[in-house]
């Protein structure tokens, strides 16, 4: 579903991502772990066609994000690390805007908005302007908009930040259901416990370079993911 091959991206003299290769299959929840500034967001933005990269290739469902960006964007959804949405719109207008752009029919969007807004207990607030939303409410709205057009691939940058425990639980359920239905999810997180319980595969990145990747069992072995992460990161103070 998502194939990253030898991705390299530099900002000035700094290599933010260095020769990174990953392969996310349909049905997989793929966790992306690394310290702050490791290159996670840069990789994620490159995968979604938001950030041009220097070398390498990224394929979404077999299509190159470089040469066929619109086709790739049509089948993926992206949620950034901060839910900066259109504050001049109400929640329902924002969802309708997204649905219009992705060509979701009136019937489908009505049913999906109803379903996902109920899941995140946001239905009563949909008429409110987004400027009146809390951070968590904006994050919920961003999540609903991501699921609204039934994408094959969902790419998320720190999706659990700002969510209340109930919403986090519901999101995990939705992620699993999406992948069980044949979709794929690639997401970054700092919450290693969540990654450990939720992900089928995981990749650990440091200073733009891939340190370890594979199934959770392969990466973790007999240890906890936290221990593996700290060992790989070479944090001697822990």
């Amino acid at each position, binding site marked *: 579903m998502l194939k990253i091959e030898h991705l390299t991206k530099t*900002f*000035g003299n700094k290599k933010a991502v260095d020769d990174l290769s990953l392969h996310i299959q349909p049905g997989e929840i793929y966790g992306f772990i690394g310290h702050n500034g490791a290159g996670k967001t840069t990789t994620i933005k490159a995968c*979604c*066609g*938001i950030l*041009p990269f220097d070398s390498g290739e990224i394929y979404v469902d077999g299509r190159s994000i470089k040469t066929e*960006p*619109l*086709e790739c*964007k*049509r089948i993926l959804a*992206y949620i*950034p690390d*901060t839910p*900066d*949405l*259109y504050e*001049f*719109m*109400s*929640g*329902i*207008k924002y969802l*309708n*805007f997204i*649905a*219009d*752009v*992705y*060509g*979701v*029919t*009136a019937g489908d*969007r*009505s049913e999906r*908005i*109803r379903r996902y807004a109920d899941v995140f207990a946001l*239905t*009563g*607030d*949909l*008429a*409110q302007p987004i400027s009146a939303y809390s951070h968590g409410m904006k994050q919920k709205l961003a999540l609903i908009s991501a699921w609204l057009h039934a994408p094959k691939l969902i790419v998320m940058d720190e999706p659990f930040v700002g969510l209340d425990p109930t919403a986090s639980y519901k999101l995990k359920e939705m992620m699993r259901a999406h992948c069980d239905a044949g979709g794929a999810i690639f997401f970054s997180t700092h919450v290693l416990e969540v990654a450990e319980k939720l992900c089928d595969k995981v990749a650990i990145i440091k200073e733009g370079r891939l340190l370890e990747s594979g199934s959770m069992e392969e990466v973790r072995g007999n240890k906890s993911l936290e221990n593996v992460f700290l060992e790989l990161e070479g944090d001697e103070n822990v």
Partner: protein
Amino acid sequence: MFKVLLRSRLAALRSWLNGSSRNKKRASAGKTVLFALLMLYAAGCVGFMMFGVFSQIAGPFAAAGFSWLYFTMYGLMDLSLMVIGSVFMAKSQLYEARDNDLLMSMPIRPSDILASRMAMLFVMNLGMGLLVCLPAALAWSISGPGLSGAGWACFVLLSLFLAFLALALSCLLGWLLSAVTARVRNRTMMDTAVSLAFLLAYFYFISKMNTAVAALAASGASLAGKLGAVAPLYWLGAAMSDGNLAYFAYLTAICLVPFALAYWLLSATFIRTATQKRGFAKIKYVDRGQKASSVNVALYRRELARFTSSSGYLINAGLGAVFMVAAAVLLALKRGTLLAAFSAMPELVDYAAPLMALAVCLMAGMTTISAPSVSIEGRTLWISQSLPVPPQDILKAKLKLHLSIVLPAALVDIIIILALFRTSGLMLAVTVLLPLIFSVFAAVLGLMANLRHPYFDWVNETQAVKSGASVMIAMFGSWGMVALPSVLLFALPELLTPKAVMCIFTLLTAVLTAAMYRWIMTRGAKIYSEL
């Protein structure tokens, strides 16, 4: 702490001058120089206009013994420009800045936050003031008798002090606007209404001041001692023209005392005003099913919603269109006066309609909706970039919004012009086509300028709309373009007839518009997708 805050404001200003920080690229030295030249050109245009005005009045006023009146008029013009230019910026910078919460959570005195922001507004006021001050001084030196040493000292110092008075007025008016609009549900509408009311009241006040100045001129300087409330106007002019130190001292107090009071009042209420919350009731969502629209309609609606949700965007970028409609009404009402004016100049009668069309172009150049349309996306730019929509479609939606506002206004003007002035043949075509083509020219120029000079480090939307280089380029570029026919006629009077000039100008505008549109759809679209 004040220095640290001031440094951060200057860093933001530097970042703006160096180009966008979003793409982590700094403008090359060449681009910075080009940008500086453009700014210089824009300032030069305004300065040249001011110089023209002052040059005309300097000689006659000096000859009639009304030197003080020249400087009174200079002072009023200087003060008006600074207050009008900074009041909305003061409101948004002081009380609605995005980083207010962050700064107020730090161990910083509110007075320091306020002072750092006021310092930047003061610098802005000084910059605007120079656009009036330098031409006034130059015109008086060339066409008037010049000033004594004391006169020059008073002129320089009072010009500086007037910037303090303007700052006090704009901060207080900004505070008033912010306080009035803070608790209103439909804030955009309220902001727009209050802002327009303020502008009308301000223009009324200035016109009354002009009447007072005229009364002063009629009464003569000998009455200065019995002038009552308008005496400061005489003191202002006389302090500068005669170097009168007593009047200088009065004016210094008049400028600096309100500033000190304003600073004291605002710093005492800064936290309360800056943290005021809008207490409107919750809107209950009722699920009535959803309706689908096409992508292009959705993109246009998004641009329209953004435009109508921000009073700063509405007023600053859409005022030209309002002027166009107002001008049509005025043309219809003052039909007789205008026709009489043109019949007094028989050589211009044949060109009355195309000349009026040029005036419409000037107002179309004031409509700058497309010029900040990329910058205003700010932190939400990721949404456009992640959508499966070609960047060309997004840019087209921005142009469509601009044109859907300005073209109907231009059409109204054209209809009124055609109803008032008889014209035929080529000049009829020019009268009809030029305002329409020029409206498109102004729209594509603004968008192209914004793609070249996006500005994402704004603290509030008004800053994005007013401070961006693209807005200045769009407005002054359009005005510069409108001046081209006069330049052609002046430079090549033997070679070109006015009719030929108007035809060439219309054609040139169309060609330039097509070229810029092509650039937007190719290079511009690539720039947009990589911002």
